[in-house]
């Protein structure tokens, strides 16, 4: 199946890290046009009309997010979230390493649109190569006067500051990211107030994902109607899906939203290895619930996946075949979330570790029958009562696979007896 490439166009064919190459492809023209010809409010309108939604995981409409900023005369900040660390997600890293100028242009357009003059790029600490590539690109952009004072002869000036994280998954949560950016402990903030009201350094702030911002130059060039015309009425445009797990051609694929998952798995990602049977797919990152055979004809879009009890999230789809040990898969994810809990709030700090220890015990053959129910019960207890979404990330996958494959979990429980409380 032939897909139209938007953000991923030219990757693997052209050296888009070179500003000259990027400009030959029409790069930076939209930013220049924006500053010269468009009012910031007009760009906000365009973003809203395009139906573009946040590609980092929450799927919040970008235009509406921008509209929340108060008109209070305070400085505003644009923060680009490149702290990609959701298990199974590797799209932002690719964009960072192969098309940094596209990200810069997206950031600049977004910054201009919200009436800000200072943008921050927050890059995951482990992305060393991406960071270096981005810094070189930023130097080129600065030298070409796309970043700096009085751009294109206008009175618009903009600064872009790059900051590297130190390896905490939680810093991908926007308020933890802001704390980290301010030099504080990377812990999510209590909301309200939301960043739009009180964000970076206490000022109105927008935090947008790399991919979200990357679409802006394309939407400006081809018009919001073009973007809105792709996908479904509520899930418009394109999305990069990171396909991994038991598929023959894992990788990043840019698809129009709403594409049936069956097409995604079998046509685009090459299907399962020969002789294997499809058991499930986790469609939207480590914190999404597992979907199964009966869901494969659903469209890959925000509404359809949510309707099936899962989510699109960051667009990281992991496919499981019949060799999968779902107890081990669950343990792997639970261990990740327990390890990454910042420890601020009780259910996430304590519950994650408890579940991890319970699964470990089961894997070591010391589980008891009641553990299986307890896994479901405890993961449910710790959900919906946390300060940030991290604590809610364990239940969806764990509960969905326990429910679907109980026999796999009971197989680890050798002696049917009740756990003794101590």
């Amino acid at each position, binding site marked *: 199946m032939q897909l139209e490439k938007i953000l991923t166009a030219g990757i693997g064919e052209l050296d888009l890290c070179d500003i000259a190459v990027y400009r030959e492809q029409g790069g930076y023209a939209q930013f220049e046009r924006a500053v010269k010809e468009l009012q910031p409010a007009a760009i906000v309108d365009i973003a809203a009309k395009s139906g573009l939604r946040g590609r980092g995981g929450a799927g919040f409409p970008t235009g509406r997010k921008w509209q929340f900023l108060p008109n209070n005369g305070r400085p505003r900040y644009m923060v680009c979230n490149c702290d990609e660390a959701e298990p199974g997600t590797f799209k932002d890293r690719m964009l960072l390493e192969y098309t940094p100028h596209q990200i810069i242009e997206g950031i600049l357009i977004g910054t201009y649109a919200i009436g800000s003059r200072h943008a921050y790029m927050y890059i995951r600490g482990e992305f060393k190569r991406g960071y270096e590539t981005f810094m070189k690109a930023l130097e080129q952009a600065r030298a070409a006067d796309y970043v700096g004072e009085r751009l294109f002869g206008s009175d618009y000036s903009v600064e872009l500051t790059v900051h590297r994280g130190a390896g905490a998954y939680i810093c991908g949560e926007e308020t933890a990211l802001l704390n980290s950016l301010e030099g504080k402990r990377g812990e999510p903030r209590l909301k309200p107030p939301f960043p739009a009201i009180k964000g970076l350094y206490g000022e109105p702030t927008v935090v947008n994902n790399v991919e979200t911002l990357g679409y802006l130059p394309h939407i400006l060039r081809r018009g919001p109607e073009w973007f809105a015309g792709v996908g479904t009425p509520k899930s418009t445009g394109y999305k990069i899906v990171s396909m991994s797990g038991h598929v023959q051609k894992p990788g990043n694929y840019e698809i129009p939203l709403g594409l049936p998952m069956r097409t995604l798995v079998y046509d685009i990602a090459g299907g399962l290895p020969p002789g294997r049977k499809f058991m499930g797919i986790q469609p939207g990152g480590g914190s999404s619930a597992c979907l199964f055979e009966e869901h494969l004809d659903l469209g890959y879009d925000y509404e359809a996946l949510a309707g099936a009890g899962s989510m699109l999230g960051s667009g990281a789809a992991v496919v499981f075949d019949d060799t999968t040990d779902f107890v081990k898969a669950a343990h792997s994810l639970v261990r990740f979330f327990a390890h990454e*809990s910042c420890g601020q709030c009780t259910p996430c700090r*304590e519950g994650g570790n408890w579940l991890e220890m319970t699964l470990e015990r089961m894997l070591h053959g010391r589980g008891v029958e009641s553990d299986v129910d307890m896994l479901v019960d405890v993961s449910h207890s710790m959900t919906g009562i946390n300060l940030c979404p991290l604590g809610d990330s364990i239940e969806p996958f764990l509960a969905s696979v326990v429910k679907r494959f109980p026999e796999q979990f009971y197989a680890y429980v050798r002696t049917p007896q009740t756990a003794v*409380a101590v």
Partner: protein
Amino acid sequence: MTTQPSVKTVTVTVDGVSLSVPEGTLLVEAAKQIQEDIPVYCYHTKLGPAGLCRICLVEIEKMPKLQIACNTVVTDGMVVHTASDKTMEGRRAVLEFLLLNHPLDCPICDKGGECDLQDFSMAYGQGASRKVEAKVAKPKAVDLGPTIVLDEERCIVCQRCVRFDDIITQERSLVVKDRGHRDIIATSTEEPYVSDFSGNVTELCPVGALTSKTYRFKSRPWDLNRTKTTCTQCSVGCQLYVDERYGDVLRTMSVAEDETSDGWLCDRGRYNIGFYNDPQRIASPLLRRGDEWEQIGWDDAVALWARQIREARDTTGPESIGVIGGGRLLNEEAFLLQHLFRSLGVENLDWRAGRQTVATPVFSGTYEELEAAQTILVFGVPPSQTAPVMDLRIRKAVVQRGARLVTVGPHSSGSSVTETHVRRVADIPSDAFDAERIAVVFDGIDATPMRDLHERFAELKRAGKSLIGFIPGEQPNARGAEAMGMLPRDGGRGTREVFSAAKDGGIRVLSLFGVNPALRFADGALATAALERTPFIVLSELFLTDTARFASLVLPAHGPFERDGHVLDMTGRVQRLFAAHAAPGGALSDGEMLVALADALDIEIPSPSALTARARAPEKRAMPRGEIRAAAPGGEAALRVIIRSDIFAGGGTVYHDERLEELRPRPIATLHPRTAQALGVAAGDLVDVIAGDRALRGLIVRVADAASEGTIRVVDGLPGAPANVLFDGEEVQVTKLEPAAPLAAAGAVAG
């Protein structure tokens, strides 16, 4: 004052009860109106919401998930269920999580019996844990600093301590370290947790993680007898609870709703409680026999005292009698004291015994008004070391309400907040006076700046601005003493004049009440000379202080928590004291001593009820402004002496509280690096500080970049190293530093 805009009210229904509360009220606070206490750990009224512990989850109609009551602002028509099945399930879950790794060592935990984790587990918990794995092991009995011990396993990471250190003291030394279930409380620098407000974290801690070294393993809360009284360690007047058991004062606790303290205590007030049963405390009247003290009975002591007074009056006249005291007495006692001696014609009455010269400001204000001031001018010794809890108000005004802090004089604020520090009155930024609400904090020592600014202040008043003054002086009830008349009038002499007269042999009998001029009086040499020449000195005290060396008769008095009566705090508010501890059998209160003396001298005194009425109705009576000292002359200073105050200095209750040893200041002389170099001394050297014919012996040199060049900073009130010998009431200049004689130095360090 600006008028508050009228606040809209909203109506919220909590458990079927309809409540009207001001717009913006947090649900957790609104629920208190109907005594529906929503459980909290991390939330605290004075720290605000943090949203960490999740125990305050409640069900709110039309919201799919449980919401935390601590960060939910009530809106009109909101319907809340604090005891629904869903709410209770949320609480049960949170408590199960909290107890997963919390040791169940309640039987040996100091918090047991007053622990929120224990209480809420009993009320909302499920009884048994489903966890079978071992609990996480973390450090226990961590020595966090001189006052606090931390048990990391008991910690539920509510971060109240961290937020107190951040929001209230602004000192930011406590932090959370590591992550997830391995996180611990620590100091950011790995250095000990040192703060003058450290004890508050033990009260804020909802579990037994943070405990006071002075109280660990001492008692169960239900065995304590609790009395609410007023702290008289300084002039702030904080209310506090004194918890006593079998004759021992075991701990003090803050009073959350107290408007004076704002719910906090400083460590001096909280921890200086270990002296009541000190073996060195005087237990009966002592009469000097050469170099020995002889224990005598009260009848003999009072008879001797009365005889000496009568003889002096009848032979050399009432002007040969002096009385110093009042700043540590109750209002009742101060009134009785001046009444008694005035009945004898004695007018040499004064409460001043240190460096402080005035106690009553011209325009008084409340602490709430201080907090609301837009400009706060601090003159002289910073209140952080003389009235610490007041300094928290200043920090709050600066940080939370945007006030501007300007410190004037040799000291910067010693506080943790942003300030403008100027040395001279003339350098005060003139726009500091543009504010509508101005507060002046003045140490009561050198009134020159007040005189220099007199016209300015009068102008501000005429312009209708709010101008209020505070004098956080050295003695807790100096203002009460002034109001009760313990100050010279009708030709009477003040302390300095009495000492001048005594030095020339003009004073025969000197009665001292809870004062220590040998260590504290502004002119140490004058005080010593005066005390040496005075034939008969009576001293009412708890301990044999530096001044007792000169006394003929020492009378054992009651300590701070052993008194019933009234004092005035520095704002002029009447504060009540209730006895919380029984004084030693041989001691009498100063009031009882005075009643006995009046009886022996046949002087009629007011009835107890009349005295109480008098104590509760203070007159505003300030030291005549003529008493204010003149400005120090400038000169080619060799080295200017700056006297530093320290809340743990002093020759009395702190000196005799062995548990505070670590907190007592050392005899240190602080110099700027260049000054030290010029003088040829280095950090750690032991030196004698020489100023003309005066010498302060055995100080340890400390070199600090923060020190001002050309100055030497020494701590006031250290027995063994009395800085007042360098001070003659005016700015003195040190001429040189000499290496200390080894013996003297060793003695000073040991002292």
